[in-house]
């Protein structure tokens, strides 16, 4: 029973982080039909913001809020720098510019900060453990689950009830039509990048909280995770992204529990094998979103 509780908490905590990351990727993809490959760097930006504010004496929550704001800022900057100038051109052009922006941010961190890992300030609560039904788990895991619930609730409210949400859903279904009705295209796209930045910023606090440090290449793994989760769940589906995130966490955590010690190093190979099987079964992902509309 204790192991089961531990397992469930692990899946929910990891799945929550994966789901929020995937959501951030799919919200931009849903509208632009383009993957933002500079998305992982938003985690890096938040991490270095925390690092640079270390020793300022500010309360951690303030530092965390600034880190999230910087992630939002760089999310919107990705739109202005990498997407907007070329988004009416070819997909290849946007792929290159988003990779280029990612590389520029990483190299800026290498050049101006350090190629070495830098410790980030974390609150004591992140290193506290709690016991639930006999299972000892970091309080950070429960905070991740709570943050996931809050963010998903906010996100659902935003998309269902707000003017911006309706406009974004309309744009995700048929961007050209939304524009022809007078929906402000650039505002909608920038908002999608801002929400994407917000999600990445919130996830970064928990993602980096596990590691305790930041390096210039920190964004690659979360980007990969988000990308795989969205592919499993369905690239055009918001619920699919969430489902994909939790499913990927379930596979990862199960393998951690099942695989013998000497096979653990091959865990990713097993994970990807499962992903391939899922895609062979459902090539469009588990939940099919709106039909692929015309790009902007």
């Amino acid at each position, binding site marked *: 029973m204790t192991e089961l509780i531990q397992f469930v908490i692990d899946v929910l905590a990891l799945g929550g982080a994966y789901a929020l990351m995937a959501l951030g990727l799919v919200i931009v993809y849903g509208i632009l039909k383009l993957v933002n490959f500079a998305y992982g760097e938003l985690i890096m930006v938040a991490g270095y913001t925390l690092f640079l504010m270390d020793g300022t004496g500010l309360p951690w929550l303030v530092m965390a809020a600034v880190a999230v704001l910087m992630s939002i800022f760089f999310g919107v900057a990705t739109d202005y720098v990498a997407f907007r100038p070329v988004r009416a051109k070819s997909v290849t052009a946007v792929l290159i510019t988003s990779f280029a922006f990612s590389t520029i941010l990483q190299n800026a961190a290498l050049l101006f900060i350090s190629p070495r890992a830098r410790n980030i300030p974390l609150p004591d609560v992140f290193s506290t453990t709690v016991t639930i039904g006999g299972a000892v788990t970091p309080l950070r895991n429960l905070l991740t689950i709570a943050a996931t619930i809050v963010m998903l609730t906010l996100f659902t409210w935003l998309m269902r009830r707000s003017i911006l949400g*309706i406009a974004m*859903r309309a744009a*995700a*279904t048929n961007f050209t*039509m939304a*524009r022809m009705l*007078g*929906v402000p295209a650039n505002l909608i796209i920038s908002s999608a990048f801002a929400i994407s930045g917000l999600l990445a910023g919130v996830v970064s606090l928990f993602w980096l909280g596990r590691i305790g440090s930041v390096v210039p290449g920190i964004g690659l793994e979360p980007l990969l995770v988000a990308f795989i989760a969205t592919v499993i769940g369905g690239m055009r589906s918001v619920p699919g992204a969430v489902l994909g995130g939790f499913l990927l966490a379930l596979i990862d955590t199960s393998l951690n529990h099942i695989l013998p010690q000497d096979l653990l190093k091959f865990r990713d190979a097993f994970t990807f094998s499962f992903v391939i099987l899922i895609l062979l079964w459902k090539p469009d992902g588990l939940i099919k979103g709106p039909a692929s509309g015309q790009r902007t």
Partner: protein
Amino acid sequence: MQADIPTTALLASNITVEFAGLRALDGVTIVINPGEILGLIGPNGSGKTTLINAITGQVPLATGQVTVAGDVMPLSAPRTVALSGVGRTFQIVRLFDQLTVSENVETAALAKGIKRKDARKIATEILQEFGMLSRAETIAANLNYGDKRRVEIARALAATPKFLLLDEPAAGMNESESQMLCKQLLELPKQRNLGILIIDHDMPLISRLCDRVHVIASGKTIAAGLIENVRKDPAVIEAYLGSSARQDA
């Protein structure tokens, strides 16, 4: 603006559109007055839909300009044209399939800067008018074809346009649906002082709805005026109405 055209009209003057060297429209000038339904007819491939696309800024113009109630529209700016009061529907219905019927209609009002509460009220009124209120919370993708067409018109109206461009609004509807739509369309110009341009191949429908028609063939205007005069025009008989009209005569 030409002297005899009211400043409240929509004027598309000398419109030329080219696609990779092919001239789809060649110097077409068309005027839509508020409060009238103007028919736009012509054989398949004559450029009718292209003309609507040109007016709404969806295709670049080689020559010409569009003026809406005295305001010259910038080139290739569909959003500006929409916000200036030009709504449209499509030959193939383009709803937001994942949104509810009500949300589809609200989106157009919201895009005009109307508050959510008011947008919902507008949507409710228009859906009631079109007999679609009972399906307000239905996901648009689940509607039948005729209802989708009605929702598309309702959505265009939610933006309170001055001019409405309808591309084959009755296509795919059965006879009773088509007649019901016809009745609803006839009310609109009076109720809203709305200028409507309607493309359709159904000549009885055009005759019932329109006093004036504009005929294009091969991208050029071949006739324009009162429907009874246009029907007798030899160029129209030759290009569009063809043998049936000659038999009628």
